[in-house]
């Protein structure tokens, strides 16, 4: 359990995070979203005890990060932004160092290193020095070091940044597998990632929480939630057919001639539209319901607070 109360961090006059309050429970995978400079990394640095907060408290598994830093830090596995590692060491040397610092001794060190090497598929390069590794491998070394002690709390700052799609997929699978009975917090600005791995998402902007909910809840805030998209086999304009229907909002046509019909009331409109389509014999090629786009919500909530500032 992580409890964050009234957390504030200032750098001189600049307020990086302002009065954050949230709890994260076991089993939750929390996606931490926000535009660049919103305070994501700062929040993570404060939670992991690297920076001390200007005000407020962070409690990790019952231990206050300021009053009992060693105990609190023992429960955390942390991948800092950019996955920094000691480049002149080989992968297994580096991981053995982490294992020893994490309190493993003798054969346990070897066993733990082997098991994390397996978990992140690093066996092929374990004797190479970290400096010579590709970006994807380096990121995995960082992940390996974070999961070394099977921590209760896993905090990953942009774990898939700069990886290719296959590597992103691998890392996400890994996070999903780890997530059982753990707390995972990932910061990211890749929104598909949130839908893919997170059970909850918090969007912050200018150091404040502007949205908090499951990805589905957040998606439902989008104006595309329940919207129906239609593509026709021939040139056809559905506007006239729909003008009578209740609950229909704007109708948008994009450059691929796909019409997206928005729901005005946030209620499902699929049934009504499909009835119309059947009765009017629409030449339909494609017909589907949108869940709503997180990107849309992201832009909505982060631009709102900007305007509020002015």
């Amino acid at each position, binding site marked *: 359990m992580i409890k964050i109360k009234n957390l504030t961090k200032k750098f001189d006059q600049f307020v990086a995070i302002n009065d954050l309050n949230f709890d994260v429970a076991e089993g939750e995978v929390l996606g931490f979203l926000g535009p660049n400079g919103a305070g994501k990394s700062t929040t993570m640095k404060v939670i992991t005890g690297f920076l001390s907060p200007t005000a407020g408290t962070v409690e990790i598994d019952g231990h206050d990060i300021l009053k009992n830093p*060693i105990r609190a830090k023992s429960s955390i596995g942390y991948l800092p932004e950019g996955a920094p590692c000691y480049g002149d060491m080989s992968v297994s040397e580096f991981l053995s160092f982490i294992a020893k*610092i994490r309190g493993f001794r003798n054969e346990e060190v070897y066993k733990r290193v082997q098991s994390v090497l397996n978990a992140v598929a690093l066996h092929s390069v374990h004797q190479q020095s970290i400096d010579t590794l590709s970006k994807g491998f380096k990121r995995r070394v960082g992940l390996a070091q974070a999961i070394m002690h099977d921590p209760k709390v896993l905090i990953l700052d942009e774990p898939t940044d700069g990886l290719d799609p296959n590597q992103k997929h691998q890392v996400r699978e890994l996070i999903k597998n780890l997530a059982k009975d753990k707390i995972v917090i990932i910061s990211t600005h890749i929104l598909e990632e949130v839908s893919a791995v997170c059970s909850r998402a918090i969007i912050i902007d200018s150091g404040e929480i502007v949205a908090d909910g499951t990805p589905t809840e957040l998606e439902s805030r989008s104006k595309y939630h329940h919207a129906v998209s239609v593509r026709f086999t021939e040139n056809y304009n559905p506007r006239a057919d729909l003008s009578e229907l209740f609950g229909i909002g704007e109708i948008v046509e994009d450059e691929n001639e796909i019409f997206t019909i928005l729901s005005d009331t946030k209620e499902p409109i699929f049934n009504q539209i499909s009835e119309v389509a059947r009765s009017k014999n629409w030449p339909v090629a494609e017909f589907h319901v949108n869940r709503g786009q997180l990107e849309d919500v992201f832009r909505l909530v982060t631009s709102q607070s900007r305007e509020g500032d002015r």
Partner: protein
Amino acid sequence: MNNLLIIFHRELRSYFATPLAYIFIVIFLITNGVFTFDLGGFYLRGQADLLPFFSFHPWLYLFMVPAIAMTLWADERKTGTIELLLTLPIKLSEAVFGKFLAAWALMGLALMLTFPIWITVNYLGDPDNGIIFAAYVGSWFMAGGFLAIGSCMSACTKNSVIAFILTVSICFTFVIMGSPILLNTFPEWIPQFVVDAFSALGFLPHFDSISRGVLDIRDFLYFTIFIAAWLLATAVVIEIKKGN
């Protein structure tokens, strides 16, 4: 205590993982030889002692030690590994001390590898090996003083070249503090005890007496406190600057 040893071990290994440690030791030994035999007139003096060898150490350390110390913290901050290190369940003091000890151990190793000169002097004459041993220890402690300054300067900046220059400047100040060059510039109205106190803060008076075989616990205490103070300053600087 255990964490300290783990960090010490990691640091020491990383010196030897790159050519750094080897280059350092080789250059250290060559310069020592040049200083002792050419500039120090080791043979010409006709005395069976290592005074010419040790008397150049402050000047040798002035450039060699900052070269080792400059990366101690500057690199950690530059590469971001400081964030990794300080979010591990360790105390800041263990990290500061562990890193310092590793660099100090490297200095100790380099010093020990000058043993051929000790063999030479024992072959040629009959020196007082007690004095030589004390001088070796004294020299090592002085190197520790230089290193502790370097550790603090390295924590001040992400740029190791800046750390090097700062360390050399501050070390130079401490080297010349007790020397007549500086003391003669003091105006006469300054009371003698102030001048004495000032010159007692420098390295040379303490190191000179140790290298002559005067084993005064106060001289060792001076270096120990000096090291402790600069390492404390290192910790404070890291605490303040780690967020930037």
